[in-house]
């Protein structure tokens, strides 16, 4: 009995293994399918509200934008803007001055984690300088005592990241610069 059942068992395992490899391949070749909850089941909208027939479902709008599976809105907003998939208005009043700054700041007080690259361009495309300067951050490289703890408490970078901009689970997106590599065209903080 022992022998026969072993060979049946190993055939079954072989089948299982190839099944899983197959799934792995499928998930690599075809981009991961994104799913959004319908408004009626999202826990903030009242399923009985007459508005649900008129409001846009997140899936309808977001499935057309650059994917970021399982992160925030599942949209890579920086890319959606770069690719021109969206072109949100920069101002409502014609006299408002719209400014963009193309300058990266490197922050290296990160222990064993890779250094942080703070990109001014990607931020100032969405945000005005005055939203960050001078209350939230002094405009001086290395002039702010930024720490991961206060970020996780919803301060500093954590004001937006974790609420509206991509969440803090994405460590590598901020901690993107390995130690010991020269960085051209960036301002070095501390």
């Amino acid at each position, binding site marked *: 009995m022992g022998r026969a059942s072993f060979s049946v068992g190993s055939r079954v395992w072989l089948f299982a293994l190839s099944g899983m490899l197959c799934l792995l391949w499928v998930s690599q070749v075809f981009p991961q399918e994104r799913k959004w*909850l319908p408004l009626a089941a*999202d826990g903030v909208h009242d399923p009985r509200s007459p*508005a649900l027939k*008129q*409001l*846009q479902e997140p899936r309808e709008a977001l499935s057309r934008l650059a994917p970021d599976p399982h992160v925030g809105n599942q949209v890579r*907003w920086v890319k959606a803007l770069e690719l021109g998939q969206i072109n949100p208005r920069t101002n409502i009043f014609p006299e408002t001055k719209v400014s963009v700054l193309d300058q990266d700041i490197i922050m290296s007080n990160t222990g064993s984690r890779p250094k942080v690259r703070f990109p001014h361009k990607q931020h100032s495309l969405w*945000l005005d300088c005055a939203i960050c300067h001078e209350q939230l951050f002094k405009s001086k490289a290395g002039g702010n005592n930024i720490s991961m703890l206060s970020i996780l408490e*919803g301060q500093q970078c954590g004001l937006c990241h974790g609420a509206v901009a991509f*969440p803090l689970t994405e460590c590598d997106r901020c901690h993107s610069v390995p130690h010991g590599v020269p960085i051209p065209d960036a301002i070095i903080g501390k």
Partner: protein
Amino acid sequence: MTRGRIWRIPAIVVCAAALGLGSAPDAGAEYGDVVINKRAEKEGMRPVVFSHWFHRIRFRCKVCHFELGFKMRAGANDVLMADIIEGRFCGMCHNGQIAWSAENCDLCHSGLPGLKSGIYGGHDTLGPGRW
């Protein structure tokens, strides 16, 4: 072990893997949804739901948080319906010109009764305790 049982283990593994790859993100509000309910429900209206995802497709953050002066803290803006009708806060756009006007009560007041004001749909990264 019988032959029947041996079959089941790998079958379960394959099914679990398939479910894992195709599963939806955690249930809950869309990331960045804000509920505003300081007065609405007390005054007989459903709570207000504001969606960042919908608005940021059309407007950059700077429009609301710089030009229009919305403070970046859920609950920090003291919004009254009278202000909106007079063209402040949501009413700076929901005035029948940039977007449909304040007459469409239900479109804004669409929230589940009982919800507290605040930001929803987060990833539980606010605060080291929840991290």
